[in-house]
């Protein structure tokens, strides 16, 4: 690991990107100074203050928790440049105008320490040209750092070296971005629009070109170019609306201006309809109208033939949908090529042209094919990059088909495929990925930071993953070790779909922990995201259908037993959490001895949605927390702490980050929050080892928990009464929430009575089983299974 210490960051430019980059640094416990121009009148920092206020309202949230805002300090170039001297990293993110940037560099350079790093978030300007605007002494520590919007959620950062960037500085920065900010790095060359935007914008232009050629509707194309081909739901045109049509036109303009010799140069023009929309001020989402527009609840789409909006209704034709369902990529591409359906022809054309473009430019724009593929996954949300898609479909066949189309004049340009395409059977191999520039395979980066990623994301064709050594498994779980990491820390992984928790998982957890107690020093509960989506509702519904309530009660008891097994195991159990940890998954998180959590963890007790309450010990844990917290408060009133937990459970609140999970009581301030989910297992193993070495003992069962009892339940009921009378909740919502209140308050006992942990578990279980027998709860469960959505009954 590098010893690059970034104690403070400065971000220059409080626009959409600058402010969000600042927010993400604050998320990562790095204080930030956010600069912009001094306001012409009013408070000097008014521009930045406005940007900071906007951060709180953005969705998805750039901040991991709202209190992070306090770590971003507003500043302006007029009065505050001295503050730059404290900053170890300065990220410039102002408007894309070379002369503005160079002016700013002149102004700030005297205040930048020689050991600080200065990096530009430009998405298109030449990094080398910008570097020349810096004093010679600072050029060694200058580079490009290109984030994608929204920077908290988009993994990609392109790192661009200049001719004079110090290699060690770049390695340090890559390390810091990877582990501290959780970003996925691609080293890009200093070519216009770098890698992801170069290919991504080309892809959009190709889609636009073929949309018009084939006479398809924008909505129809979005139906084709979204999840059906492994791309985001917003597909092509909706994405354009979100990005902003003016921004898109600007990027196209940059390509037009900076790539005069690109064989596809003729394509780098905004279509007439796009320019017309921009002229009318219909810039997409930010102006509430663009290619799409919302009219009441109806989504309308621009229809070029009618020169007006019409209801959006685009669908994939059944015969094309059938082709897209084919799991064999080679067959799928062959069928697309063979079909005469315009949608199929369209899809083949857009893939063909992107493949053609990527192969043609690989040597100039990227170090190797893996970088290009990852750039498209991480920067544009494609599930597979263009080269791996091509390789999966049969490299030689596709290459021949592309060349045949070029020869037949069907391609967009007649530039030939490079010779290397025909000399290879693919670009990704176990030994590495092809570099067209070097004419050789390139292995992954050997930077130390990547040793922390035991299971990094892979492209197709890479060496298979190390599955470790299995110690024991059943249908629900696998207990295994990675002896190269620690032969006596077990890894417990769920095998179920979405890691839902059913009988076999419960049995597996209990047995695995028993084995770990005998044979190991600790356990890490780890698998790829999601952590767990909750109990296996299918099994619950089946048992209800068969009237097996006794069996269900036993299952709930087993759930509680599994939670308590995790909590009271003789070895530390560390939960490595990423993605959703809901319902029973959240309860396992709460019962673990420690948590290593990815920032992007979405944790909550959502049982109310299906008419149930947490009964795997979730209510009990909150009652226990209230008891512990109240002991430190004057007067020792436990209800103060129950009230928030009650609202969290009754409203099925889900924390939208690990930081929020701590705030809501699902995790603890002493837990570890990691920004790169690929590092979770590495950190989990080491945390479990450290706990074991430090003499871990499980917590003892508390025999005397002070509970809120009858008055507490009544006070919760007062809130419910008002919501029900006001028509905000249904009578069944009331019933479910009152059951939660009863469990949280330790049952209908006297206020401040002292009860055991087991008593609260019994109360929780009794309330749960009573709800299971309620017809309205049963309707909710069935509805959730059938539609995936909660029923309000």
């Amino acid at each position: 690991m590098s010893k690059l210490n970034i104690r403070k960051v400065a971000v220059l430019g409080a626009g959409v990107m600058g402010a969000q980059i600042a927010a993400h640094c604050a998320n990562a416990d790095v204080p930030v100074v956010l600069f912009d121009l001094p306001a012409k009148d009013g408070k000097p920092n008014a521009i930045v203050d406005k940007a900071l206020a906007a951060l709180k309202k953005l969705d998805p949230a750039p901040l991991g928790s709202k209190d992070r805002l306090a770590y971003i300090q507003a500043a302006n170039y007029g009065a505050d440049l001295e503050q730059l001297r404290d900053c170890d990293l300065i990220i410039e993110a102002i408007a894309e105008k070379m002369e503005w940037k160079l002016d700013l560099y002149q102004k700030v350079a005297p205040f930048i320490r020689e050991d600080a790093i200065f990096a530009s978030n430009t998405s298109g300007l030449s990094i080398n040209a910008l570097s020349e605007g810096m004093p010679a002494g600072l050029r060694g520590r200058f580079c490009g750092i290109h984030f994608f919007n929204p920077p908290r959620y988009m993994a990609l950062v392109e790192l661009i070296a200049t001719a004079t960037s110090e290699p060690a500085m770049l390695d340090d920065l890559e390390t810091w971005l990877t582990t501290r900010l959780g970003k996925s790095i691609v080293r890009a060359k200093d070519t216009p629009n770098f890698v992801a935007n170069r290919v991504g914008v080309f892809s959009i232009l190709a889609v636009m070109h073929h949309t018009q050629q084939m006479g398809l509707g924008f909505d129809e194309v979005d139906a084709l170019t979204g999840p059906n081909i492994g791309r985001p739901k917003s597909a092509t045109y909706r994405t354009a609306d979100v990005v902003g049509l003016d921004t898109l036109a600007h990027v196209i303009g940059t390509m037009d201006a900076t790539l005069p010799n690109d064989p596809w140069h003729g394509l780098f023009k905004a279509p007439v309809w796009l320019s017309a929309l921009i002229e009318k001020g219909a810039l997409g989402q930010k102006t509430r109208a663009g290619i799409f527009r919302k009219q009441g609840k109806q989504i309308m789409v621009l229809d070029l033939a009618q020169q007006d909006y019409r209801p959006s209704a685009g669908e994939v034709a059944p015969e094309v949908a059938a082709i897209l369902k084919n799991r064999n990529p080679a067959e799928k591409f062959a069928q697309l090529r063979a079909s005469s359906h315009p949608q199929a022809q369209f899809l083949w054309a857009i893939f063909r042209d992107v493949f053609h473009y990527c192969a043609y430019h690989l040597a100039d724009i990227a170090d190797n094919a893996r970088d290009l593929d990852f750039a498209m996954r991480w920067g544009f949300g494609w599930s597979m990059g263009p080269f791996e898609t091509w390789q999966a479909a049969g490299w030689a066949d596709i290459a021949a088909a592309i060349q045949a189309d070029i020869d037949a004049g069907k391609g967009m340009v007649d530039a030939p495929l490079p010779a290397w395409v025909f000399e290879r059977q693919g670009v990704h191999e176990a030994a590495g990925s092809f570099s067209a520039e070097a004419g050789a395979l390139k292995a992954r980066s050997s930077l130390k930071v990547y040793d922390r990623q035991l299971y990094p994301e892979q492209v197709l064709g890479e060496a298979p993953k190390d599955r470790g050594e299995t110690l024991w498994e059943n249908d629900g779980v696998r207990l295994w070790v990675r002896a190269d990491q620690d032969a006596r820390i077990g890894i417990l992984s769920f095998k179920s779909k979405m890691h839902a928790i059913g009988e076999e998982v419960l049995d597996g957890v209990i047995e695995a922990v028993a084995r770990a107690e005998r044979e190991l020093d600790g356990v890490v509960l780890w698998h790829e995201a999601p952590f767990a989506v909750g109990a296996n509702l299918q099994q619950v519904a089946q048992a209800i259908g068969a009237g097996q309530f006794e069996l269900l009660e036993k299952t709930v008891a087993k759930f509680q037993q599994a939670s308590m097994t995790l909590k009271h195991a003789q070895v530390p159990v560390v939960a490595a959490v990423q993605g959703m940890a809901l319902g029973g998954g959240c309860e396992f998180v709460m019962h673990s001895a420690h948590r290593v959590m990815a920032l992007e963890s979405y944790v909550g007790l959502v049982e109310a949605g299906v008419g149930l309450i947490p009964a795997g010990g979730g209510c009990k844990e909150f009652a226990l927390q209230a008891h512990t917290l109240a002991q430190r408060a004057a007067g020792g009133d436990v209800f103060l702490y129950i009230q928030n937990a009650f609202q969290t459970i009754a409203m099925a609140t889900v924390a939208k980050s690990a930081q929020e999970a701590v705030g809501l009581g699902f995790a603890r301030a002493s837990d570890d929050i990691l920004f790169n989910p690929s590092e979770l297992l590495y950190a989990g193993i080491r945390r479990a080892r450290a706990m074991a070495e430090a003499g871990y003992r499980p917590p003892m069962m508390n025999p005397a928990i002070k509970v809120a009892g009858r008055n507490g339940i009544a006070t919760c009921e007062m809130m419910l009464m008002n919501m029900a009378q006001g028509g905000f909740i249904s009578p069944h919502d009331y019933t479910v929430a009152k059951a939660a209140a009863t469990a949280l308050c330790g049952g209908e006992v006297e206020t401040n009575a002292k009860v055991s942990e087991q008593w609260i578990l019994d109360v929780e279980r009794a309330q749960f089983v009573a709800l299971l027998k309620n017809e309205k709860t049963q309707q909710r469960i069935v509805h959730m299974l059938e539609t995936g959505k909660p029923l309000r009954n």
Partner: protein
Amino acid sequence: MKQIQEAYIVAATRTPVAKRNGMFRNVRPDDMLAHVLRGVVGKVPGLDASEIGDVIVGCAMPEAEQGMNVARIGVLLAGLPDTVPGLTINRFCSSGVQAVADAANQIRLGQADVMIAAGTESMSVMPQIMGNKVSLNPAIFEKEENYGIAFGMGLTAEKVAEQWKISREDQDAFALQSNQRACAAIAAGHFKDEITPYTVRTHVPGEGGTVRVVESVCDTDEGPRADAAIEKLAKLRPVFAARGSVTAGNSSQMSDGAGAVLLMSEAAVKRYGVTPIARFVSFSVAGVPPHIMGIGPIEAIPRALKAGGLTQSQLDWIELNEAFAAQSLAVMRQLELDPARVNPLGGAIALGHPLGATGAIRTATVMSAMQRDASIKYGMVTMCIGTGMGAAGIFERV
């Protein structure tokens, strides 16, 4: 009750009323109380403070910063002699006018010649609007007829709106009028005489560990909105019922404030040579179902009129606490109160409602109106009360 002498109000004053977490967010309710006690005593030059028989203070949530018998603490902080006692009373929103009635009664019974009635409330210091610790009796939920005890005030306003058919439009129009009247009254300086300006001293971190004290003089009510508009009010969402009509705009504001009233017997008036403002005429309270608590004045006003031997038409000035536009309009319509005489200077929707202080504050407003306008003979302060009651106190200009 057989009274042996009349009770007269000889002075009244109040703080400006602040929005919850507004200009008084760092001001303690006991300090506000001490301030108005000093203010009202200061209005009677030459008063021998040791003659004050008792200081009765209304407070709706007498706990934490306003607990520990805030009345006695206020007396001591005000620098009144140790011999002056203090009593805190609570009848929720009517506590302030209840204090005036109780103080008058002490005089009327001959137990004292000089009394102070006051009210103080800071809603800013309450972590929850229902006080510092909310704890309901489980028995409430065992019987449907007791459910109303658990209803939030806003919900009871919805019930009143429904039962008395008070439309959203009428509520919003009433709220707008309240703001317009209050703004006009402030512009005309009508509150100037009754307000004793408060200098807020805020302690903030200064340089190098020193504490800086920032002073600001507060002399104007903070609540009224000059920019209130019917379109804006119409856009607000109902807060207490999904399909309801009661919004933040047509409900009273949560506030901080205090008021105090000095009362004397005829003998004391003569002894000090002061000119009394008004005679205390009568006071009544009455219970109503808790789930429609807002209609309390419908029962209380006729009782108070009867006790005073008056008819409703004799009332020239009515301070009807605007807990909600819905209940205010229900009361006004059912009793056929003349809208021109009700809250001529605006009400709690604009001016704010610091719960237990409101009765004393609005008594000061009536006294001020009587001093300004000789045509006002009878004035009344009335309000609804949580858990279902109404109160009304009547004063006669002398």
